[in-house]
């Protein structure tokens, strides 16, 4: 696979220009996740707006994949209802487990479809999933999701 197919311009763009980066003033749930093999870090926060829409805060350090993934996460779930967000999260996780054969739905995953090439590199899948796992964890900690709903990802 070419480098260009892995590092699609969308990824590089989110990496260099992260959307909505920063922490929340009043988070409901916060999860700090680390990739122990490479040291990538994401601190992810959730809160709920008056209309039930999700508010996302995040910070982190790490490789382009992990940090771009956090930015894409923000773009995709900020303002969504918890159940909508959960569908998006599941779609992203599924894409990462597709071994590169996934056909992601842009209507659901938006810029997330740019991560299709990552699924071919087992060591990088963890990078891409890092913010999404932290997201799920933050939702559980914030009482927005039951632990038993967790799929272990």
């Amino acid at each position, binding site marked *: 696979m070419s480098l260009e197919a892995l590092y699609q311009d969308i990824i590089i763009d989110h990496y260099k220009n992260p959307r909505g980066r920063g922490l929340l003033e009043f988070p409901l749930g916060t999860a700090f996740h*680390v990739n122990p*093999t*490479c040291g990538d870090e994401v601190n992810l926060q959730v809160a709920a707006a008056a209309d039930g829409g999700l508010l996302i805060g995040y910070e982190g350090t790490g490789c382009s994949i992990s940090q771009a993934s956090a930015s894409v996460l923000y773009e995709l779930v900020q303002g969504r209802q918890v159940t909508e967000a959960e569908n998006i999260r599941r779609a992203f996780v599924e894409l990462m487990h597709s071994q590169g054969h996934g056909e992601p739905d842009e209507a659901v995953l938006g810029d997330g479809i740019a991560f299709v090439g990552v699924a071919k590199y*087992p*060591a*990088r899948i963890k990078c891409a999933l890092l913010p999404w796992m932290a997201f799920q964890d933050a939702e559980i900690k914030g009482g927005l999701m039951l632990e038993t709903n967790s799929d272990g990802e």
Partner: protein
Amino acid sequence: MTGIDVARIRADFPILKRTVRDGKPLIYLDSAATSQKPVEVLDAERTFYETSNAAAHRGAHQLAEEATAAYEASRARVGGFVGVEAENIIFTKNASESLNLAAYAFSNATALARWGTPVDPRFELNPGNSVVVTEMEHHANLIPWQEVCAKTGASLRWLPLTDSGRLDLADLDDLIDTSTKVVSVVHQSNILGTINPVAEIMARAHAVGAVGVVDACQSIPHMPVDVRALGADLVAWGGHKMLGPTGIGLLYGTSEILQAMPPFLTGGSMIATVEMERSTYAAAPQKFEAGVPMVAQAVGLGAAVAYLEKLGMAEVAAHEQELTAYSLMALSGIPGVRIIGPTETVDRGSAISFVVEGIHPHDVGQVLDNMGIAVRVGHHCAWPTCRRFGVPATTRISPYIYNDQRDIDALVEAIAHAQHFFKVAS
């Protein structure tokens, strides 16, 4: 006749073609010590080294990806073989390490608690507590618990044996009582051949809130074992007795227990975060696998499991059952031979210990060896069991898939020869 075609199987084991002691064909009856390895296992290891060798879980390049995938595929395969998820299987170097890992959970937790680290109280031992084993344990499932007791003040108890080599469970409920925090028993004795009712014992352990451990070294290689059905929290066994390479052992644990246990070997690859002052640990199984793992051995073991699955473990068990019946009959028929352990095939495996009146087991073994027959002599790392039966040692045969009745016939003839040579009644 079972579905096991010994002649075909033998063709897969290069070592069985060799001769020993001046040209005698090798008759290998020592598989309880370690099994031989089929060419598929040797090929799998070699291919791994020749194409994908790298440190698993420690790199992002293609070789490291392949090595990690191969290592984890083997974990899943071993898990499937005993009916559990990959994440419940820990790779160790041998069954002894697996059992020590279990035992150290208790001594480590006790020491950690003493200095303020919060631990799961199930693992904390005090002088009032007891640890229960049986009188037929392999040293690997006895000495680690003696050491735990010496390090915590807890006391060791054991389930005694009947004269016919079975566990005497008459006092089960007294021996395993509310003081008991861990019960560790062997599934199939390596010296007596006895298969123990471990599910019943584990149920009693759980009834008093104790952790249950099973040593399945001699059962999993020889019969279909659904480790969950054993009812234990932890189950230990080795790879080298089930056609796998040397240098690899296994520990199954329930997710719940693995999470509750403190780590054992610490270092790289088992961590979540590390600072100079303190570290946090990864989830199991990584939590228990410090350092660069035995990747090639895991791959070889995966091939061994595939080989056994191809034969079918029910077929393997049936074959051994048949051979056990034949061996028991043949050995009982020799005057002066006494079997140490159950003399019927009910709840017993194919390892059979015996003594020959008037000839020390070492001398029996020597005569057998001279005739090309490899057996084990001595206390078989179950010295207290020998004492229980009033013998200093025994001679033990332990057949496997590559043995047949002709091997037993040769054995019988060799025993007669030993009796003749040492001029004892036969």
